[in-house]
């Protein structure tokens, strides 16, 4: 049974619009202006070289530490929850992803700062506002992401394979090396590549926790070159170029080592569902607490100020409009991003049936689809502004520009979630349904839709959560009528309203947590379903 070619045509058109209009034209325009503006004297700029070294160094260090922690934690949790399909642990591991980085930075200052909570208990950290603090914050934020990828892969390693290995004499480490590792390594590698992207383009954490130069990244340097008077498009473009190179490097490594014939990217699923073992309640609670431990520290931003925002009529009136705008922006960005990801996965799936080239370069295309995660939001915002700003009334701002910009930036998030779903397409079941009289659409609705629903909601929530905290890109298209919540935070802080600004940060935190929670509950996000086991 083949998916109709019309889907290929439609998805191809969308892909062209997305990649050309959303990335190609803006970036091409920006690099062209930059080249004409100043040339590429990068290697003579020793300051930029030192910033590049710092960017790559802190990103690699943060990724290595996150990988080490996340891998073993993921293995442990995966082993424990493999017998408990309804476990909340994966959802809890996903929660930190939704925390805005501004909130993360504020939280760590509140915990580790000289006047922080730990200092009040007599525990002092000398290394806050230094490279150590940045690496620590990065690692703490990203360990659960890697753990989640490894946990999800580990829990679906067929129990029979592990049993067979044990019976053949394998101890724990041999099991790990010969049976588990081949089945988790690609998910692990891809998660590490994503973490590397994040750390490379890190902005708020470096600015707030880094203590200033020499701890700075290409992103903070970009900020200076674009935002302070001496508009340096050439320098900004060079920073963006190197950022992209650093973030693409791990993906290139993955591509290099990935063996298409090995098919080890495809999970091997036993069709036998093992009877659930009774997991002790105490133990279950312990696992939940471990997973929750990576989000709990950020809760320190939740203070009475959050409630005051809604109780105090004056603050409420100032916050309500940005609040609803942020929700709407998050909603639409989520929808567009998910739609684009669906088109991308359809293109890959249907295209590989129709065109050998798509099949051959499938792995490369999947890496290409991760490319936007290596793009600076400031650079994309500027590129969009230069290319499309002439059609926008600056006093009205442009909601659609904000949505499209965030769609491009967060597309990799939704693609990552939806990509395994299409790979688990249950062709035989669809054929069975069709043979029993169901039309194509009905067969999809009854057979496939239950598998898609959860990941679609999960992808939506991921993008919406990220959108809530994003400020770099939207600032180019905001106006007095279109002010999202993060911009309100920076405004209030410029006007001595620090506590209230923190209240909004707390509100953003609550919103993003709620989104992720709702996505798991409404979507009943189930990995088994998404890869065709149930």
């Amino acid at each position: 049974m083949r998916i109709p070619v019309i889907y290929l045509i439609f998805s191809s058109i969308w892909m062209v619009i997305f990649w050309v209009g959303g990335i190609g034209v803006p970036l091409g325009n920006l690099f062209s202006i930059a080249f004409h503006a100043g040339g590429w004297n990068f290697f003579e700029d020793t300051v930029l070289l030192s910033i590049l070294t710092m960017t790559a160094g802190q990103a690699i260090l943060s990724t290595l530490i996150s990988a080490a922690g996340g891998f073993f934690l993921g293995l442990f949790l995966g082993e424990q929850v493999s017998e408990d399909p309804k476990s909340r642990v994966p959802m809890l591991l996903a929660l930190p992803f939704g925390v805005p980085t501004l909130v993360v930075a504020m939280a760590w200052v509140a915990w580790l700062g000289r006047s922080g909570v730990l200092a009040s208990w007599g525990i002092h950290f000398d290394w806050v506002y230094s490279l150590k603090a940045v690496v620590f914050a990065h690692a703490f934020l990203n360990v659960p992401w890697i753990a989640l990828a490894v946990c999800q892969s580990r829990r679906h390693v067929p129990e029979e394979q592990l049993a067979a290995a044990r019976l053949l004499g394998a101890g724990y480490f041999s099991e790990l090396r010969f049976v588990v590792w081949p089945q988790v390594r690609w998910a692990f590698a891809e998660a590490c590549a994503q973490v590397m992207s994040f750390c490379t383009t890190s902005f708020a954490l470096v600015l707030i926790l880094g203590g200033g130069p020499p701890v700075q990244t290409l992103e903070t340097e970009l900020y200076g070159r674009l935002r302070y008077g001496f508009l340096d498009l050439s320098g900004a473009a060079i920073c963006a170029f190197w950022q992209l190179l650093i973030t693409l490097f791990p993906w290139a490594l993955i591509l290099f080592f990935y063996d298409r014939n090995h098919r080890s990217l495809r999970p091997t699923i036993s069709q036998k569902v093992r009877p659930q073992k009774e997991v002790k309640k105490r133990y279950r609670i312990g696992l939940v607490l471990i997973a929750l431990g990576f989000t709990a520290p950020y809760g320190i931003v939740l203070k009475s100020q959050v409630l005051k925002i809604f109780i105090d009529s004056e603050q409420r009136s100032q916050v309500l409009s940005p609040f609803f705008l942020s929700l709407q922006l998050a909603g639409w960005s989520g929808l567009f991003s998910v739609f684009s990801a669906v088109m991308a996965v359809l293109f890959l799936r249907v295209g590989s049936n129709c065109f050998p080239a798509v099949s051959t370069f499938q792995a490369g295309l999947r890496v290409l689809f991760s490319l936007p995660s290596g793009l600076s939001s400031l650079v994309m915002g500027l590129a969009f502004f230069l290319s499309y700003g002439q059609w926008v009334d600056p006093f009205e701002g442009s909601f659609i520009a904000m949505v499209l910009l965030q769609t491009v930036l967060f597309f990799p998030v939704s693609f990552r979630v939806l990509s395994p779903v299409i790979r688990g397409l249950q062709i035989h079941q669809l054929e069975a349904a069709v043979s029993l009289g169901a039309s194509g659409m009905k067969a999809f609705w009854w057979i496939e839709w239950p598998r898609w629903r959860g990941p679609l909601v999960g992808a939506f929530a991921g993008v919406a959560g990220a959108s809530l905290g994003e400020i770099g890109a939207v600032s180019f298209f905001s106006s007095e009528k279109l002010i999202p919540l993060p911009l309100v935070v920076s405004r209030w802080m410029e006007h001595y309203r620090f506590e209230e600004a923190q209240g909004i940060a707390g509100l953003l935190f609550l919103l993003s947590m709620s989104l992720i929670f709702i996505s798991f509950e409404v979507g009943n996000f189930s990995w088994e379903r998404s890869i065709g086991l149930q």
Partner: protein
Amino acid sequence: MPKEVSLLSELRVQDLCKQMKDYRIEADFSIQVGQRVALMGPSGSGKTTLLRLLAGLDPLQEGRDFGKLFLGQKEITFLSPQEREVGFVFQDQALFSGMNVLDNVTFGLRMRGIHREQREKMGLEWLGRVGLAQRASSWTDHLSGGEKQRVAFVRALIWKPKLVLLDEPFSALDLKLRVALRHELLELHRLWPAPLLLVTHDWVDVQAVATSFLSLEAVSGSSIWKVRRELTNPGVFE
């Protein structure tokens, strides 16, 4: 017949009583060296559970379950699966997806410290016996059902386990393949005649392969499934 055959000994299951969630299994039987015993019973009666018990994958719980398991003089009741030296052929083969065919079949030898050259030699030899030598470097994903089953047989036997357990090894195969694989199993068992327990629903399997059979039957009026020894089948192919 290899010299190590003399090290083989009988399996003795003594007063075994395993409590499951909704039912209980009771068993008391033995399997001699060279014997191939078929285990039959209705679905849900605990056949696979019994196999997993013998393999140590679902161990007896002290205070709740009773009984002892012996391989010769050695009690294996509470030994780990690694220490029991049991070869197991799973219903869906459970081949390692991260390895090719040769690595799969020689895995048990690798765990026992056999050198790579020796492993490869033995692996190719055994694969040759089942007609798969030319597939040694293939990934297991690329094998047909019958080929996977053969690989599973070789993997379970090549390292000379003290006991061999098979969980419905022919269930997903067509008639022609079943006949062929029964034959191959018998050939392999001739090479290494460890006590063999085979779970099956198919009476033809029993007649073709087994020297005797056990059945799991419900004790009337209770939720107990008891292993009952049937007569030795005189029609078996030796």
